[in-house]
Structure formats: C-alpha cells, structure tokens
C-alpha cells in the first residue's frame, strides 16, 4: 500500500509535543499539566450549583420548576439552587458564572434540554468561569420529561428525580482534560456528482488537499445525463463540464475515479481511509481517448449512462465529456467458459469475434493458447459448454463447433495468414541459446516445443514412430479427425524456427534396456533440459487365456496400424477384420475401434462392457454415433476366455455381471453372477480396456499407478532437469487438458533455465472464483442452438468425416447466442488497436491508505424504478418512459441525437406526463421527491418545443417553490401544456396507443385519454450501495435510507459522527440549486474543522487500576480498537490502555470482573449513584 498521507500542517508548538517528536504523533503524551486549570479543584469538598431552566414554557409548561428547585435545594453539597427563564441565553449563562465566582462553586448541574443539544455550551461556560468543563452534569427535563408528559405532580416528581440523580452524580465527577490531537489538514469527498464536485472545489480553493473518490469511471453523476436544467433551461453539460475540468486540473484535488471506500479507521481530524482503486485495465494518463479501441470491440451491452436506451462496447467511455477523459473496460470476472477451459482459451473472446464475422482474429486468438484449433474443434470433450450459463436458459453455445469453424476457415483461407501463425506470438528471448530435448511429438510435446521456441529456445523433438502427432495422428481414426487438418497444424509448429523434428528415433532413458538408443546422460551433454511427453501407447492386457491368439488386438495397436495404412507407412500390414468383431471396453478408444472395424468391412460389431450404458466413460454423443451406425452393445458382460478354432479366433466366453455397491470412483462395482456365462461367436477381438506407459523405455521413477511421478504444479520429475507431462503423467486425458499441462510444464522449464523460483505465484489449481455479478440481459431471446450438419449413418462407411461443420451464417448466428457473461470477452483486439499501448487486461484492484481530517459524503441518489407499480406497465409497454430516459432522448449526445421520438422512430402526437409516481405513496416512498414537478414541466417544454405534440400533465399539486420556478410553470402553461388535476391511476393499451385513466377532480369526471407516450415522473431514492457506505463509515441513516443529519434544522450538513459531513441528495431529495448550496455548506463546515490547529478528543476514555488487574486479557480480546495490551508491570502482566486508540465505549469496563478498569466520566460509582438516587427518591410508600 502506497502511503499517500497529506502534507502535515506545521504543528502549533503551544498545544502539542515538541516538533520533531513525530513518531508518536498519533499518540501524543497526554499529561494533564498541559492545561492551566489549577489542580486543587477536585481535592476539596464539592460545592454544587443547581440550575433548573424554564426554557420559556417548554419546561415550565408542564413541570413546576420552582417546586423542583425547592425540593433539591436541601440536598448535600448543594450550595446554590436557582431557576431561570433561558439558561442558554447570554444573561442566563452570565448569572451562573457570577454564582461560581461568588460562591466558589466547583460543580454545576444544569437541568434543561438534552445534553446532545447544549452540553458543549455549558462546558464552554464552565471553562470561561475557570471550572473544569467535565465537572458538569445535565438533567434532560425537556425532551425526556416536559415535552412527553402532561402537567401534574408525577411529571414534577420525575423532574426532581432526574435533577437529584444529577446532583449525586456530579458530586463524584473528577476533572477531565480532553486530549488535543493535531488535525490532518486534508479532506475526502465520497461521490463525484455535482455535490461532490462543488464541495471539492470549495475545499481546494481554501487550500485544503482534497481526495475525491468516485466509484464510476467518470465524475459527473446524474447531472451529466441531463439535457436542459430548470428553470433557466441552461444546457446541463455546459454548466457542469467546466466544473468537472476544474476538478481534474485543480492542484489541490486528487481525483480517485473508479474507486470505492473500503474501510475507515481513526476519529475526527485523524481519519485513515482505505480506498479500493478498482482495476480500470486502461492507463488513464496514457489513454488519449482516440476511440480506436471501441471500433474493434466485439461486445455490445446496454449503456448504464443511457439508461439502457443505447448500447456500448465493453471498453467504453461513459460520455464524451467524461473526466477523467479516458476509457475503462467493464470486466465482470472470468467468463465461466474461459475459467472451465484447461488450456485457458479466451472462449468468450473468439465467440464474440465470430459473431462479428472476424474469423481471422478469432483463429489468431484461439491459437494463442491452443496450438491445434482444428483438432480441438473436433475431438474436445468441451468442459466450457457444460459451464456455459446459457445452459440454464435453454442449451449451451456450441463452442466446440465454433472453434472448428474458425480453424476450417483458416485452413481454407491460407492467403489471410502471411506468416506462420505461431511465429508472431514471439514472447521474448530469455531462452536464447538454450537447447531442450523433447521426447515424444504428441500434443504435449509439440505445445512445449512451441512455447519454448516462442522464447527463442532451440528444441529438438525425438519421435519414436515414423510420424509426428502422437495419439492425435495414430490414436484417433480418420472419420473423427481428417489427416490434412492434422498435418497442417503439426507442420505449423514443426516448421517454426528453433524446432527440429527427428522421426523414428526412439529415446530410451533406461540405459540397460536399449544400449543403442539415446540415453539421459548423453542427452544431458547436448541439452540443458529434457521434456518427456511419450504418452501412453501400450494397450493394457486382461491376462485371460487366448489373449495372444492371432486376430486379438489391443485397441491402441489396432487403431495405430489402421492409421499407419492411411499414412502409407508400411510398418506391418493393415489388420484383417473378420465378419463378427467384438470390442471389449467402454471408453472413447473402444468406440473409435468399433467404428473403425465397421469401416474395415466387419458386418457385425459389438461392444462388450462389464457395466451399463450410464457408467460408460466414453462421451455420450460418441456412443450415440456408434449406436446410429448399428454397433451393438452387450452390457454387464466380462470376457473370460478367447476361444480358438484351428488357431484362429472363433468365439469369446463372457461372464454375466450385475451391479453392486459403487467403488471409489463412484461407479457401481460389477459383480459376477455365479455360473452364468455366455459364449458369443466372434472372428476378431479388440481389447480396449486402458492404456499403459511404455515403462521399460524410461527409468524415472513412476508413481504408484505406473505413471511418471511429477510435482503436480511444476511438472518436475525426480531428476532436476527432467520434466514430464501429458498422458505419460496423468494417464489418457483429452487433448485440451494435455495442452493445459503442456503450457505449465513449458513455463516451469523456462523458469528452470532462467534460474527463477518454480513455484512463485502459481495459482493453487484452477479455483473458479465466485461469480461476481455476471451480465444479465434484460430482454431474453429464445433462439435455439444451431444444428450441425453431418453425414447419415447409412453412408458412413469410409473414413471421411462424420460432422460437416457449420456454414458461415450458422456460425455467426450461433455465436450471437453468447450472453457476454463477463462483459469484456478478453478477445484482446483492443490491445492491438491501441496506439499508445494503454491497455492491460491483467490489472488487479489495488488499495491505498489516505489520511484525512474530514470526510464529506456526497453519494447522491438513484431514480426510482417504477416496475413494481404494475398499473403503469413500465417495462411492459415500450412507450412508457421514466423522466431520465426522456432526458437522454432530448440530449444532443443521446441515442437519438436530441430528437424526442417513440421507439418506432416517429414523433409522438400526444404525450402524458404522470406526476408523483412512487412518491407521496404509502406503499413506496412516503416523502415528496421535490424535483419531479419541475423536471416534468421542463420535459413538457422540451417536448412541445421539439415535437409540438400535445402534452397533458396529470398532477396532484405542482410544487414550483424555488426562485423563478412559478414563472417557469406559467411559461409552460403559456406554451399550451394542459394540466389535469388528477393522479394517473393506471395505463392500459388500446390499439397502438396507451390510455391514461384518471379523474379530473376539478370537474369530478372520469378521464380516459389515449396518448402515444407516457412519461412517469418517478421519485428519488438513496443511491444503490449507500447502505454499505453507511456501515463502513459508521454513519446512521433515516427511515427512508437517506443519511441522517445531526439536526434537521440547525445542523443539516453534519452527520451524527463528528468529522463526517453530508452534501447533496445523499441526505434528502433536492434539486441542483439546493444541492450546490448544501455542498458548499458542507465544505464550509469541514473547513471549520480543518482550520483548527488541533481537535479536542473525547476524554471519557478507559483507565486501568494496575494493582487490581489480574491480567486475564478479557479487555484485550473484547476491545474493537485494540487499545488495551498486556504489559509488564512489577513482574506481572497487566493491562495498559493506549489512550489515543480508546474511544470510551466501555466494553472492557463492563466486562472486567474485578472492576479494575474505570471509564472516566462514566465510572461505576457515578452510574451507581444515579441508580440509587433515582430508586430511593421516587420510593412511594406502597
């Protein structure tokens, strides 16, 4: 956290510790002798003066004041007891001061109004009279007695009780000396609307450093949305933007846009505010607002500034005159599809690009993370689609087919790709001169090679087989993955500079097994690091009799030989397939083997699986394809023996099974049914029950299950310079997962070779962050998922592809179904488009601690959403608008460039404006929102001026109370606006118009007026988030949610918390003139505080009696401010209070069992004296 404290004001030496003693500036030494009061005050006997105020008739009206005075005048220590008409008046105070001098009074009881009202006045009065201000007790006779009760003996007795209790209490008061703490001469304004702007400018003008915190990317608030302002019809932007520019350019103002208050500590004059600087992803200083990025951003979502009437891109500037005039990116977390992709493909990004037909950019974005777009587009198990939020509504977006379309488009448009795609994402040269040996050219080996080559390393790939591509090439049959796509994507990588491919060169890392092959030691001489990506090419064996017969293959070998024949590699002939083929196993390899066998001429192919359809690990759409092609399924059968007839396979004997309890993987364990076996005539048997590592070829230790053991995060094996990933480590998984591990392994190798810490900053696995408010489209289009075209089962007898892919229109239509969950799709198009490189998608929120002396809340208001009032049909009938929406229509920079038109573009002929929508209404907002009448008049004027339509306003009262307001009302009447005195009751559709139902209460007749547009003059509610802000700043709010002022009439800009002030509509609805006045008042109040050299902090804080403290640390645990700590005192641990942190809440005092902590001003004895006096005094003889 960058410490950004304001410049300290030169410390006034007189009142605070010597300058230079800065380190404990926050906890200055608080010796009592800082003050001049003489010490002897509290030693001698208390001499109390009791004054009962009549407060005009406010108290005397119901309390017999003389009798009260008479009743308490004989109490012990009472020297003077008097009543007067107005104690708080000048003469009232003077008479008390004279009494003090004359009778050497050292304690005073004032019985009048609430201490929250005038306690400060009485304290000042005592100080001037030379008495310690805390030798005072106030009895609240007005708010708690006279105003509440009717005149009578009981009321007087209550008054006597309270005064008597105050007398007993004040006798026990000790003099207290308020702490003096220096004031940080800086202020923070929360909220950048016109109120915040005005307050900031006033403070800055007075030389106070101001921190303006605005949560939106730009200041301006709701005023920036307005077209004209009443009553002068000034253009809102014309009078607002200059002030906004002043804020930006004022040397004393630090503008923290796109930021929120996170936490508040400290107290009046010494606040420490933690501000969250939300990530903006655009460098404000660098951005020149040239708008180039907007041109390339594929995302369109409704603009909040335009109230949803127009769309904006993900990277946006709220409005043209925004301050700071820079762009921001609307990122709402990681899109669920991107988060689910093991390879980290920017899924929402390429889908958005496809939706705009920008296929080249889509392909480039995919291949940044996925080296094999074409392959992955065909065989991926697409976890992204399972996470797609569209699945909740109807079906997920067909992401896999879209990726395939982009790859096929690239395949058919080579001219678009001048250089090899893999080249230009060259990342750096920190591996220049480094040589890495990569064993195995499967998807993981190629990914690692490409990633390292991108850092200019030299990679040599050693492939045992005669063809590259590993399982992609030899494991997956042609009908699923055409060879030409495979070839292109492998060549794209292998042809990269820095990558050399050696085919048919097996590498054995086990010296004793194959002496001739390359060994680890010899590799180490030439290479700096070794990567093992040899996959799992051995088929597991069942170990049943007859498994070695000719005609029995393992699924892997069977597919490999078939693929070899397609690649005209003559390594052994193409496997012969009999009429009846049995494929044992339930995984994808079994399905591929079965469908391949059928294509090789088998008449009847059946898959034998020991569980049922639901437990089959293969993807269900692949099982579907196999079933379509007539492949039979024999479930709950487990092969026992392959029976031979004259040396060749004739049948297979299977054991019938039934399902028992689920095993560790959750799948139900198959149990044999005793004695129930079946023999099926077969000519060929393909065992596809799993894959194994070719263990002999490698001596690096293997984990328990026979796979290579690696560190799960760094992929480093037991040998320091040997890394491994892919099927050889994890067992057979999908290509996208393998590529994901490939990226991580390559990064580990890069760090290893650069000598960096392997583990630094690695995320602990892919934890899906909690979904932070994904974008939710208001209107909901129900377009179903596009159907991909595919060849009918009947004519699928060759190895041509089954799925034929999307057409261009299908791809674009399907891509448009994307919900833009994370708003910004991270397609990174803007990054390239930005001339000054101002965009950084990896930015994160940062925090700043700012020290200020005063805080002004200017959080503003929101327009109330009238949807709950079904009778008006807002959101149901398109031609029902709120006032702010009409402001945007009539605003020249708005969606319709200032023409007030209906949704269909035509000018309205008759418009109705309904007043008091949601305001002055018990069911919604009981208060009057003050601004709707005037802005309705203004809108009426604008509509008449721009469309000359008839305008009818349905009102109860027109509240045109301000300067020039009534004249404006008269002018609007002149302009022909009709006013019907009757609240709009409901709006119903009729033909293509809307009918407003009301009663013309002047005529007493029903009105059913058909109109073209209805404008609802909705009221004002506190801004969203005001409640969290209130909790963070510990400020109370009123019944309606607005911030509560200290006193409605006398202190309208102070909050109840000292040092925090309220400006503008956050405190109550008000129009712009009142808001500006209110804001300037708040600034003035804050200046009043900040201009003082020090501030007196409440002295009623805790005090420990070390002798009695047993050191049980209860107080330490219970204190919200961490004031008490256990400290050494005469060989014992005893509690010690840090007086600067203690706020005097008394939690520790009440909790301490041994009563070893006292709260100055609220000690146990003082409270006990009040209790006893109150009970004793009003004891009637029952």
């Amino acid at each position: 956290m960058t410490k950004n404290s304001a410049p300290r004001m030169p410390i006034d030496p007189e009142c605070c510790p010597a300058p230079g003693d800065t380190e404990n500036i926050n906890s200055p030494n608080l010796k009592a002798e800082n003050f001049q009061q003489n010490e002897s005050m509290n030693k001698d006997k208390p001499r109390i003066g009791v004054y009962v105020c009549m407060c005009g008739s406010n108290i005397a009206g119901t309390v017999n004041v003389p009798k009260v005075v008479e009743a308490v005048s004989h109490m012990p220590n009472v020297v003077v007891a008097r009543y007067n008409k107005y104690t708080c008046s000048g003469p009232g105070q003077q008479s008390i001061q004279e009494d003090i001098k004359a009778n050497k009074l050292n304690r005073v009881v004032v019985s009048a109004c609430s201490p929250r009202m005038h306690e400060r006045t009485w304290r000042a009065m005592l100080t001037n009279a030379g008495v310690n201000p805390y030798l005072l007790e106030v009895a609240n006779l007005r708010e708690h007695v006279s105003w509440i009760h009717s005149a009578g003996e009981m009321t007087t007795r209550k008054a006597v009780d309270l005064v008597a209790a105050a007398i007993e209490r004040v006798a026990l008061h000790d003099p207290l000396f308020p702490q003096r703490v220096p004031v940080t001469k800086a202020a923070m304004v929360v909220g950048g609307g016109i109120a915040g702007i005005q307050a900031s400018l006033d403070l800055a003008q007075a030389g106070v450093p101001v921190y303006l915190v605005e949560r939106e990317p730009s200041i301006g608030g709701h005023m920036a949305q307005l077209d004209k302002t009443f009553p002068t019809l000034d253009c809102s932007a014309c009078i607002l933007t200059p002030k906004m520019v002043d804020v930006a350019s004022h040397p004393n103002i630090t503008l923290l846009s796109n930021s929120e208050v996170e936490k508040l500590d400290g107290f009046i004059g010494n606040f420490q505010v933690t501000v969250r600087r939300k990530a903006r992803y655009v460098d404000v200083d660098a951005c020149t607002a040239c708008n180039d990025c907007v041109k390339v951003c594929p995302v369109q979502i409704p603009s909040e500034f335009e109230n949803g009437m127009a769309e904006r891109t993900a990277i946006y500037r709220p409005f043209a005159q925004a301050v700071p005039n820079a762009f921001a990116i609307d990122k709402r977390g990681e899109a669920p599809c991107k988060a689910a992709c093991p390879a980290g493909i920017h899924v929402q990004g390429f889908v958005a690009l496809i939706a705009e037909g920008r296929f080249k950019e889509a392909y480039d974005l995919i291949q940044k993370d996925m080296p094999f777009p074409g392959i992955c587009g065909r065989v991926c198990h697409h976890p992204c689609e399972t996470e797609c939020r569209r699945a909740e509504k109807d079906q997920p977006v067909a992401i896999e087919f879209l990726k395939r379309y982009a790859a096929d488009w690239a395949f058919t448009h080579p001219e678009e790709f001048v250089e090899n795609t893999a080249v230009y994402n060259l990342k750096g040269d920190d591996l220049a001169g480094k040589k890495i040996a990569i064993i195995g050219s499967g998807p993981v080996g190629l990914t690692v090679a490409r990633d390292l080559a991108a850092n200019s390393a030299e990679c040599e790939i050693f492939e045992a087989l005669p063809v590259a591509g590993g399982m992609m090439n030899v494991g997956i049959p042609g009908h699923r993955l055409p060879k030409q796509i495979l070839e292109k994507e492998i060549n794209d990588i292998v042809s990269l500079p820095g990558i050399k491919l050696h085919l048919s060169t097996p590498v054995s890392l086990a010296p004793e097994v194959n002496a001739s092959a390359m060994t680890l030691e010899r590799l180490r001489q030439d290479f700096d690091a070794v990567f093992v990506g040899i996959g799992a090419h051995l088929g597991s064996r069942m170990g049943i009799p007859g498994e070695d017969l000719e005609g029995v293959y393992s699924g892997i070998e069977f597919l490999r030989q078939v693929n070899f024949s397609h690649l005209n590699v003559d390594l052994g002939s193409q496997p012969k397939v009999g009429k009846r083929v049995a494929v044992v196993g339930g995984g994808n390899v079994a399905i591929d083997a079965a469908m391949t066998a059928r294509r090789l001429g088998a008449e009847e192919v059946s898959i034998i699986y020991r569980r049922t359809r639901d437990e089959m690990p293969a993807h269900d759409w692949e099982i579907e394809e196999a079933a379509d092609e007539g492949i039979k399924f024999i479930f709950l059968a487990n092969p026992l023996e392959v029976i031979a007839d004259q040396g060749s396979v004739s049948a297979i004997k299977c054991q019938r099974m039934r399902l028992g309890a689920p095993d560790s993987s959750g799948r139900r364990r198959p149990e044999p049914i005793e004695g129930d076996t079946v023999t099926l005539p077969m000519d060929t048997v393909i065992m596809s029950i799993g894959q194994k590592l070719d263990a002999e070829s490698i001596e690096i230790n293997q984990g328990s299950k026979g796979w290579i053991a690696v560190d799960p995060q760094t992929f480093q094996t037991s040998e320091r310079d040997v890394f491994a990933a892919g099927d050889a480590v994890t067992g057979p998984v999908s290509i996208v997962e393998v590529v994901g591990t490939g990226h991580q392994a390559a990064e580990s190798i890069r760090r290893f070779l650069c000598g960096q810490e392997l583990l630094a900053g690695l995320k602990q696995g892919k934890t899906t962050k909690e979904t932070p408010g994904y974008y939710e489209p208001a209107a909901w289009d129900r377009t179903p998922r596009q159907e991909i075209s595919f060849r009918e089962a009947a004519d699928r007898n060759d190895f041509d592809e089954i799925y034929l892919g999307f057409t261009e229109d299908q791809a674009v239509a399907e891509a448009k179904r994307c919900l833009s969950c994370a708003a910004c799709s991270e397609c990174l198009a803007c990054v390239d488009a930005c001339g000054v490189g101002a965009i950084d998608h990896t930015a994160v929120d940062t925090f700043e601690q700012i020290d200020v002396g005063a805080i002004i809340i200017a959080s503003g208001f929101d327009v109330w959403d009238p949807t709950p009032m079904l009778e008006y049909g807002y959101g149901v009938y398109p031609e029902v608008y709120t006032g702010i929406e009409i402001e945007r229509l009539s605003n020249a920079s708005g969606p319709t460039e200032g023409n007030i038109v209906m949704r269909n573009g035509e000018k309205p002929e008759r418009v109705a404006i309904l007043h008091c929508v949601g305001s002055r209404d018990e069911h919604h907002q009981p208060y009057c929102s003050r601004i709707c009448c005037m802005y309705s008049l203004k809108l009426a004027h604008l509509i008449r001026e721009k469309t000359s339509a008839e305008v009818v306003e349905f009102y109860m009262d027109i509240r045109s109370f301000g300067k020039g307001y009534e004249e404006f009302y008269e002018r609007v009447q002149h302009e022909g606006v009709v006013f019907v005195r009757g609240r709009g009751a409901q709006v119903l559709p009729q033909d293509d118009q809307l009918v407003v139902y009301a009663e013309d209460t002047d005529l007493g007749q029903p009105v059913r007026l058909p109109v073209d547009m209805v404008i609802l003059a909705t009221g004002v509610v506190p801004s969203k988030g005001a409640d969290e802000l209130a909790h963070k700043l510990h400020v109370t709010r009123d019944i309606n949610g607005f911030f509560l002022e200290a006193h409605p009439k006398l202190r309208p800009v102070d909050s109840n918390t000292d040092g925090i002030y309220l400006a503008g509509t956050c405190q109550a609805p008000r129009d712009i003139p009142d808001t500006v006045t209110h804001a300037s008042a708040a600034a003035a109040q804050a200046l009043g505080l900040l201009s003082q050299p020090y501030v007196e902090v409440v002295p009623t804080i805790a005090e420990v009696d070390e002798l009695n403290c047993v050191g049980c640390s209860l107080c330490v645990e219970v204190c919200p401010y961490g004031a008490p700590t256990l400290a050494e005192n005469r060989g014992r641990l005893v509690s010690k209070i840090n007086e600067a942190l203690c706020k005097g809440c008394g939690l520790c005092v009440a909790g301490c069992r041994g009563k070893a902590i006292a709260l100055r001003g609220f000690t146990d004895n003082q409270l006990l004296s009040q209790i006893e006096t109150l009970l004793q005094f009003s004891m009637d003889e029952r």
Partner: protein
Amino acid sequence: MGVGQFNIIDDTNIDLDFAEVKGFNISKLNTCLQCGTCSSSCPTYFAMDVSPRKLWRMLALGLKEEISQTDTFWLCTSCNSCTIRCPRGIPVADTMREIRELILGEGMQPTPEALNRLRTLITESHNMMGDDNETRLIWSDNLPEGLGEIKRQADVVWFVGCVSSFYPMAYKIPQSLVQILKKSDIDFTLMGGREWCCGFPLVTAGMSDAVNALAVNNVSQVIATGAKTLITTCASCYHTWKHIYPDMLSHFPKDLEILHASEYLARLVAHRQLSLGPVERIVTYHDPCDLGKRNGIFDEPRFVLENIPGLELREMANHHQNSLCCGGGGNVEAFSPDTVNTASNNRLLQAQQTGASYIVSACQQCMRTFTGGARKNKIRIRAIDLTQIVYEAIENSAS
C-alpha cells in the same frame, strides 16, 4: 339534486365531526389527497353520478343530505383496487361498506327491495337462493358414482358455498373438486344441509348484524367435524372464514387452517399427489378480487396452471394486484345488472385480447358472472374454474 344546482355549503349542512361520530376511521380519511386515484381505478365508476373521491369529500364535511341522495356506494363491487392504489393507504373499499351500514342503519335511504329479500332469504332458508337448505348437495346427483358415504369426522372439511351448491351454471366446480379429492384419496367431509350461507353477501350489503347467527352455526358445525383444515372454492367464503369469523367470534379455533381450493391444489401438486396430464390450450388467469387483491394469493393458482403440461398461460393487461374486477361482487347485480354486465364485458374483452380460449378464475362468483356476460355480449371465450381444468388434466393423465 341535479349537477347544475349548487348547494351552498354553510353551517346548515356542514357537520365536521359527523364522520367521527358515525365511527368512520376519520384520522385516515382526513389524510385524503383528493387525487382521484380511487375513482379512476373503480370498475363501475362510469355508472356513478358522484365519484368515490367526491363521496369522501362529502363524508369529511358531513354533508348528510348529499350523501343520502347518491347511489355511488350501491355500485361498489368491493374489488379493493382503490384500497391497493390509494397513495395515502386509506381503506377505501371498507369505507364504502361502512357507508352502506350507515345508510341502512340510519334509514337515510329506504332499504333497496332486493337487499331486503336477500336478508330474509339468508336468515330464513340459510342460503342465497331461498331453496331448501337440505338440497345443498344437489350438484352431486349426476356424478357417475355419486358422493359415496360422507364421513362425520375427517382431516379436511370442504365448505362448498351457496353459488356452487345452488347455481346449475356453477355445478361443474364442486363436481370437479370432489373427483380430484377422491382420486388423491384425501380424507375429507362435507356438511351438506348443516352448512349455512357464510353471510358475506350480507356483510357487503351493509347488514353485517345478521351474520353473527350464521357464523356461530357454521363454526360449531366445522368444529364438530374435527377437521384440521377447511377448504373452499369461493373467494368470498375464504375471506369470511379467514378474517370476518375470527374477528367476530372469540372462540374461533385458532389452529383451524383456512385454505382456498387453489392453495390446497398447489400443495397437492407440490407434494406430487396429483398426476396432471396434458391440456393443449391457451388460457388466461383472472385474479378474483377477494382472493388476490384482498388476501394476496396470486402465485398458487398460477403454480397449478404452470404444472399442467401443454398449457400456455398468458397474462391479461391487468393482473396480480393490478387485476380488474369481474363486476360480480358487492351485490351490485341486485342494484344495477347492466353495470355488472358492462364491467364484466370490459374484463372479457381484455381476456379475448390475449387470444386465450379459456378464462380461468378461482371463484365461483367470477365464473358465474363471466359465463353470463360472455353469453350476453357474444364474446367467444369460455369461463371455467381452476378445479375444472385440473380435473380435465387428471382425466388426460389417466388416458
């Protein structure tokens, strides 16, 4: 007193504490903004000579003469739209009823003949029709296997209500519900002749004094059945059992659960006790005023409809708490039948605009008003009750 002739308001006719003396909720009435929302929300305002808003003005000023010369309060269907929308939260509909009590109680107007007859019918024959109360279960005669033996004691007691019992047009409702209950083997009982009219028509007519006797009988009969739950298909009976009886009788059984048929059906659907077959039809749902706007039950009927496969539910322009009255409430029928007809016609047109072939409601009185209105105004839409469509769905699930 025609509209033209001004009656000067002076101390001869003004009586500012008239309303308070007569027991009106004056502290609330005085907050009236005279904004006209109640008048323009009223389904029968078009037929009134003095708008409801103007009536409060007269009441507040205590203009007894003017009040007794208008018939506004006789046209109030007590549909509660005014109370729901009144920005000051004044109980406008209840005030209308209190004015009726005042007018009849103080004889400020001769009791309309129809209301006198209604009173004698209900007090003597214990039902609205004046038929023999013992024939309350007449609707069950043409049931294929009849009612079977009616148990004295059961978990659920079904308070059928006068309209379902005596109006042939409404017979389909009890007939459907009894089959539903039997198919879901619910332990229920009926009170037959022992069931008297709940008295709601007398309450709205302003003659609530006669309701006490009915309440005492009905409650004691229900207690006798030992039922824990009482269900009824009529929204007005539901309101009476839910609010009027508990306020009227101190010994009302607190633990007796009062459910409208739609709530009970929703519970059966939720607990999977009803197997609903497909009904391929577009329907719209009408919120009965006493069920929706007065008692806040909007979702249960819709939950049942949405669980019928193949059924498309379309909302009318007015729905939920913004619903429009069918015109059948408040005995307006007895006072001015064509007002009722126009009001129900407005609602039926709205239903037609949705393109629905059925207008489903959950109150026998609404169903009866709509059926009559549709026939009279030749509007091609069929009014049915929720129980009927549920029964149709159950029938289809069986086949």
